[in-house]
């Protein structure tokens, strides 16, 4: 539908990925880190869709569906872990969560 050069679209996906990367590096709240990981996964999927539109093959879209499933599984496990961590430590700070051992 659009007739844009490939560069601009790939660079847009790159900008989104870099924003997610900055979010992962900067934030101390584990919740925001999970959101930034979602942004990065989504921009990786965007690259697959761009490739699929460029070569007019369905493989890129198939990969996006797999990325979607991986993201859903990752989010469900991650959010369950966040809830457990919050009930245990009463904080979402990643620097407070540095002990793997149980308290007792």
């Amino acid at each position, binding site marked *: 539908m659009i007739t844009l050069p490939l560069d601009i679209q790939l660079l847009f996906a790159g900008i989104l990925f870099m*924003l997610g990367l900055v979010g992962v590096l900067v934030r101390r709240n584990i919740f925001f880190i999970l959101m930034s990981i979602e942004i990065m996964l989504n921009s990786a999927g965007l690259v697959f869709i761009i490739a699929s539109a460029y070569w007019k093959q369905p*493989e890129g879209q*198939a990969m996006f569906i797999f990325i979607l499933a991986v993201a*859903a599984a990752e989010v469900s496990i991650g959010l*369950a872990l966040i809830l457990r961590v919050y009930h245990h430590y009463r904080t979402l700070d990643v620097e407070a969560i540095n002990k793997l051992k149980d308290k007792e």
Partner: protein
Amino acid sequence: MNGFFYIAAGVAIISTIFVITGKNAIHALLYLIVSFLSISVIFYLLDAPFIAALEVIIYAGAILVLFIFVTMMLNIVIEKKKEKKWLKPRMWVIPVILAVTLFFDLVFAVKSVPSHTIEKGIVLPKELGIAIFTRYLPAVEITAILLLIGVIGAYHLGSQKKKVFHRFLEKK
């Protein structure tokens, strides 16, 4: 039609910036929904209408609603105060420098190949379904197992367990 791409891309980038700089988790999640919706517009413009619908239904609909439900179980007011303490401006400097350096690397890599234009040619959902359920059927089955593991893991981690001792070890 190219104007729509630039508008959607601008909305996506601005709302993503609000996500990574936001202090209130709910507001950040709503900006993330806006970002995913605008990326869905871009998918539609890239001749992938089925993927655009999946993006709206699964990402913006299911995954972010899961985020919002979990946010309701956390104490947002206290977390917001802590967030203001954690997020100092000088913490942004080094990660942003690193990310911009990597981005220029990417620009160089993209610009070093001759430029092409994406032309018309829609991939129908029928072709996608044929590709998934014939050539990539093992991958679909592995994905199904992954989702099953996700369900079991989320149930296991999310359930509040009582500590049950053996009846001989139980403290009276």
